């Protein structure tokens, strides 16, 4: 090895992978997302112990255990507040939140909006397969309204959730869309998202080969979005409101300061506080 290799990251992507074997179906897009995440961590030169991966419940939410970082596999739909608590209490940690379209947009929808508003410096990765994988294939908020399934035969009849424009409307500071079929491109999005201050949202189209084998065609549907992500917010709204759900790339970048109240900086003692009660 030579001098130049010294510039290579301290840790290879593999260093961020644990020895726990995923329960995912072979072919599942989430494997590739795991790859993108570890590649991004590696390129960012993060020490694994200074990274936390937080999730809820779902196939996608199993990711924390597959990384060799700190992790929390919480309850369904609550990964964002769990992560926000961690980040506000420990601003020195890099916190990535992993979720699915059910976990993140159905039961977790409120936290999604409020995390966008609150703008804590988190990176929120939603592996969107337009289905509840873990519970055997029910419609999620992003599912097409006519997708037939056992719980809503003939389709839910409900128009799909548009996560990106919701994120924008709610105040997200960084909005991107990736595709699990493009592991390296997605890794790049994630790196940018992690670097960007405040709340970053990355939707990753990540096919469910088991319940949505039709999603194999996604590789032909996705296309690069050639936009200026720092575009004025009104124009961005129009763009994201009418996008086809398959354009990938960084689609919006805002300049809002991250929410991080100071912590650990005492200006008074507990005795001072008690003094206020003393007669």
């Amino acid at each position: 090895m030579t001098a130049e290799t010294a510039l290579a990251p301290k840790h290879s992507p593999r260093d961020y992978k644990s020895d726990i074997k995923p329960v995912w179906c072979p072919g599942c897009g989430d494997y590739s997302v795991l790859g993108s995440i570890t590649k991004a961590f590696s390129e960012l030169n993060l020490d694994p112990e200074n990274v936390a991966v937080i999730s809820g419940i779902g196939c996608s939410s199993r990711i924390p255990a597959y990384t060799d970082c700190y992790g929390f596999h919480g309850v369904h739909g609550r990964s964002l507040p769990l992560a926000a608590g961690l980040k506000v209490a420990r601003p020195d940690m890099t916190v990535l939140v992993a979720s699915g379209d059910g976990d993140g947009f159905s039961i977790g929808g409120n936290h999604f909006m409020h995390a966008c508003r609150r703008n804590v410096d988190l990176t929120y990765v939603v592996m969107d397969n337009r289905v509840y994988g873990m519970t055997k294939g029910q419609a999620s908020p992003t599912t097409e309204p006519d997708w037939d399934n056992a719980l809503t035969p003939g389709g839910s009849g409900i128009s799909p959730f548009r996560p990106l424009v919701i994120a924008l409307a709610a105040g997200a500071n960084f909005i991107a869309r990736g595709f699990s079929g493009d592991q390296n491109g997605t890794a790049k999005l994630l790196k940018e998202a992690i670097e960007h201050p405040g709340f970053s949202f990355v939707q990753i189209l990540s096919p469910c080969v088991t319940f949505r084998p039709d999603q194999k065609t996604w590789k032909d549907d996705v296309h690069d979005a050639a936009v200026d992500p720092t575009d004025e917010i009104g124009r961005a709204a129009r763009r994201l409101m009418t996008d086809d759900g398959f354009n990938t790339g960084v689609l919006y970048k805002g300049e809002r300061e991250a929410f991080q109240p100071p912590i650990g900086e005492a200006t008074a003692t507990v005795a001072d506080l008690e003094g206020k009660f003393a007669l």
Partner: protein
Amino acid sequence: MSTLDINNIGEFLAHAHALEAEAASQYADLAEQMEVHNNTEVAELFHKLAEIEGKHIGKIDDKAGDTPIPHIPPWEYKWEGGQSPEAVVDMDAHYMMTPHHALRMSLKAEERAADFFQRIADNTTDEEVRSLSAEMAEEERDHIKWLNEWLKKYPEPENGWDEDMDPPMLQE
């Protein structure tokens, strides 16, 4: 196809190394997936492929010797479409896949790799890059031959090979 110009030996080695490393790591992952899903036959095959790619990495590193290999972020390699040409499309994996499918998967990857090296060889202005690249292309073509041989032992299974009558398991 766009022209691929790599005119610097360090850059070339970085690509070659990454290409093999990516393939090795992917095969290892796939082998693991098959193990987890009790598809031992294909798991073994993927292990074997991983091992072979691992050896290639060694070879390239030997060739590199003291040549400085720059670090390139994964997305800045000059891959067509962003992914290493030798990367298999892991979305095509299936827990009931047979060696036939695995070999086909691999074959496609090797073909892309051969093509990649050949195009560098065809386009580069750097002689050292040209000769190494041509050598690599040749090697990949050897693989292709060998994979094709191997494949003969595993004819394409009939339709319905992936049929699983059992419902998936409910989990959390």
